[in-house]
């Protein structure tokens, strides 16, 4: 039997968390505001006169017996803001980690599993959408915590493949999912092209974005000294460099600048950003940086 992505103890601790979103979406009610629209639901809203074609199951037969008129019960609709979890499965997610740490791909899968479980506990529906150069087959997780196992199986079945292409991913995403909602990106955001513009498009279409940037220790502070031949894992491009302290510092500064730009983009669009190293244990990340940006 395959090892679970997240263990039982950790799942129990996740039960007190909730996925939050801050925006209001047209036609849907976000946050904690209840909808005033009638529709299928559990909470009673009002009565109205019966019209032909109405569902006989909604007739208030007790009122008919008393007033000999047909009244129809109306219920408060409970619209769910769609939560979409975009998980980067490009091959760059398998590089850049220290030997003792998990690679970004495995870390991302575990993190996605934890977020899905949090959503399922609150009866949210979460769409797991892997991507690399394009959107791959999605998986909709809903129906409560007891439906967590299929989602975990789906995540375990993912394999790293392809080159990151945010532009194509964003284009497909916007055409595929016109209904606005919460979009959570779990990625290293290391696209050879410019990832900022595609992410900006997604935000411009009214989605609330949460960028979770993962990096390995080697991604941010490369080790070693002397002459090196670096190979880009996605493109295969070679680069010969002489690594010393100043080169390392320049590299780290450039990386931090990239992270800062990503954070700025998120905040500017009313979204949120969390970035951390895969050297941080997943539990610490969930109850630390992620809980803070989620607001509990």
């Amino acid at each position, binding site marked *: 039997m395959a090892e679970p992505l997240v263990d039982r103890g950790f799942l129990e601790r996740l039960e007190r968390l909730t996925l939050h979103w801050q925006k209001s979406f047209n036609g849907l009610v976000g946050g904690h505001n209840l909808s005033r629209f009638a529709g299928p639901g559990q909470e009673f809203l009002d009565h109205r006169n019966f019209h032909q074609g109405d569902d006989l199951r909604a007739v208030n037969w007790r009122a008919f017996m008393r007033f000999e008129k047909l009244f129809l019960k109306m219920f408060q609709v409970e619209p769910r803001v769609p939560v979409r979890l975009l998980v980067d499965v490009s091959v760059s997610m398998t590089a850049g980690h220290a030997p003792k740490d998990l690679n970004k791909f495995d870390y991302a899968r575990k993190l996605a599993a934890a977020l899905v479980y949090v959503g399922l506990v609150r009866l949210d529906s979460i769409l797991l959408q892997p991507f690399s150069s394009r959107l791959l087959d999605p998986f909709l997780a809903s129906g409560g915590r007891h439906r967590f196992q299929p989602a975990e199986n789906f995540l375990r079945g993912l394999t790293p493949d392809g080159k990151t292409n945010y532009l194509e991913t964003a284009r497909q995403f916007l055409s595929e999912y016109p209904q606005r909602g919460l979009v959570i990106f779990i990625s290293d955001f290391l696209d050879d092209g410019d990832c900022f513009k595609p992410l900006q498009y997604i935000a411009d279409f009214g989605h609330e974005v949460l960028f979770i940037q993962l990096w390995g220790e080697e991604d941010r502070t490369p080790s070693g000294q002397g002459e090196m031949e670096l*190979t880009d894992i996605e493109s295969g491009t070679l680069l010969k460099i002489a690594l010393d302290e100043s080169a390392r510092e320049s590299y780290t500064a450039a990386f931090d600048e990239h992270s800062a730009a990503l954070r700025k983009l998120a905040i500017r669009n009313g979204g949120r950003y969390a970035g951390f190293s895969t050297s941080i244990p997943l539990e610490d990340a969930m109850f630390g940086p992620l809980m803070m*940006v989620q607001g509990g």
Partner: protein
Amino acid sequence: MFFLNLTAGEFFTLLGVVGGLVTALYLLDKSKRKKVVSTLRFWTPARSAEELQSRRRMREPWSLILQLLGLALLLLAIAQLQWGSKLWRGKDHVLLIDTSAWSAGRSGDGTVLDAEKRLARQYVQALPASDRVMVVRVDALATPVSPFTSSRRQIMSAIQETVSQTSALNLEQAFSFATQAQNWADGVRGEIVYTGARMTAGEITDAGVPANLRVLTPELSREHVGIRRLAAKRDQQESNSWDATVTLKNFGVTSHVVRLEAQFAGTHFSPRSIELAPHQEASAEYSFVTSTAGELTASVAPADVLSTDQDVHLRLPKSGPLQVDVYTKRPQELRPLLEANHRLVAHFFDPSQYPTPQQGEVVVLDGFAPRSRPTLPSLWIDPPREGSPVAVKGLDYDAVIKTWHNETMLGAGLHAREAHIANAKIFEALDGDTPVANTSAGPIVLARNATGTHPKLAVIGFDPLQGQLKFEVTTPILFANLMRWLSPESFRTLDLSAGGVGTATVPLDPKERTEQIRVVNDNGASLPFTVRAGALELFTAEPNILHVYSADRERVLSLTLPEVGDFEWKTPPDAAQGIPRSSGISGGPVDLWKWLAVTGLACLLAEWIMFGRQMRARTLAAKSKAAAAQPEPELAAK
């Protein structure tokens, strides 16, 4: 400068191998490392990297140079590099101290050995402190007692502990050993120094004398007369008669008249005055009759410089015929059979008198079996079946002797084939038993060796004085053989001699067979020997009493006299003599290995600090600095 431990070739070979290895590791370490990364977008332009590369090329060679320098210095330390001339290095001398029999001679107030030790000490004190000396005691053998050492305490101790031995000097062998020792030491060859009386066992050829010889001769007189040999032999016919011979030798260069005194068991023989010319040997013979054991001694007067060979002692055993107690009812028939042998005396008793308090050395039981078995070697003649000492497995009423075992000593000379015996007992032979005569059914004459509880015994399963065998010559020979086997000591011809330690030569009779010869010392341990040109040769380096057994003959060699060398070796004219003057060189070359080792280690430490430790520290510092600069996630959310 010169190497002590390694040759220059070995040093450079080692340096080449280790240096090549270090250089290869250095190049491997500095070669490009390949790495797969998530992205290349954050790396600085290649131009600046090339600049860095050129800067590195300027700095890194110092790491290699320091490593190679450190290794070279450490290898030089291992090679024990020394500063100075090779002439400063101490020489290796071999000091031969004569411990032969002559070293016990008198010289002034002490012995010759005391004078040798004094000269040896003076010689060692005159040597430079860095010179090394090996002390070797020389007599018949050359025995090193110290290695080549510059420790004066060790050398003086080896000289002091030297004691006189009893063998003659073999100087040629000593010179050969000293020359070889200097070759093996592979150092600067010094002198071979001999100190002693220069009296050797044989003449020395000039070819055997080393060129670097120095001779230190103590004051002594070589005028000496000593006893070379004392021999005693029992008469073949009369076992109580002894013939003794004393051999004297004049070792000096002038004639001497000496008085030889001899005594046996306290009885003095009349003294004899003997004149001996230079290097002459003379013998004096003594004949005497005795059946008792005692000590035969001979001494020479007047005493001279060497007293160790001027008196000699030889222990003679008790002698006389074998005493045999015969228990029989027919003494008149057995008497001629036993008394035909002059080496034994028979005492006859009636079987009812068994056992008598007066006991001989062998018991003969004729036709009866006593209740208690004799405690002495015994011969049983036709014992009854029930009381037989050897189990009887059957009776043969018309036995025919098929085999006499001539291959054994017991069956020697027995030839009466097909002899018919009217009534014979067939014995049950055990392992270790020696059958003497056999019928087709089994042995009828048997000998059994002594065990832990029973002495030797022989049993004849028929009456030899009845029937056909009564008239055969086989019967007295069989009795003689059985008696000889029961008490071989009584029948053995005994030669006793006292001689010098060292090589001993014993002439053998032509009929003596080499495979029957055995040489043992007083403790019963066998000694090696050779038989060459009809003589047995053996060697002992220390006083010893040796027994040479050969069939029915025993020779006792009391090798207790010192073996005094009788050739005076003349010092070659080109050999140095006397104590040399002190050289005045007190110091030797300067040992550099400690400084080289410290400098080599310092180089390696500097390399590690400059290029190893600091590099790691810089990497760690960069990582912690980068970690500190990492943006806080909660700030990003705000």
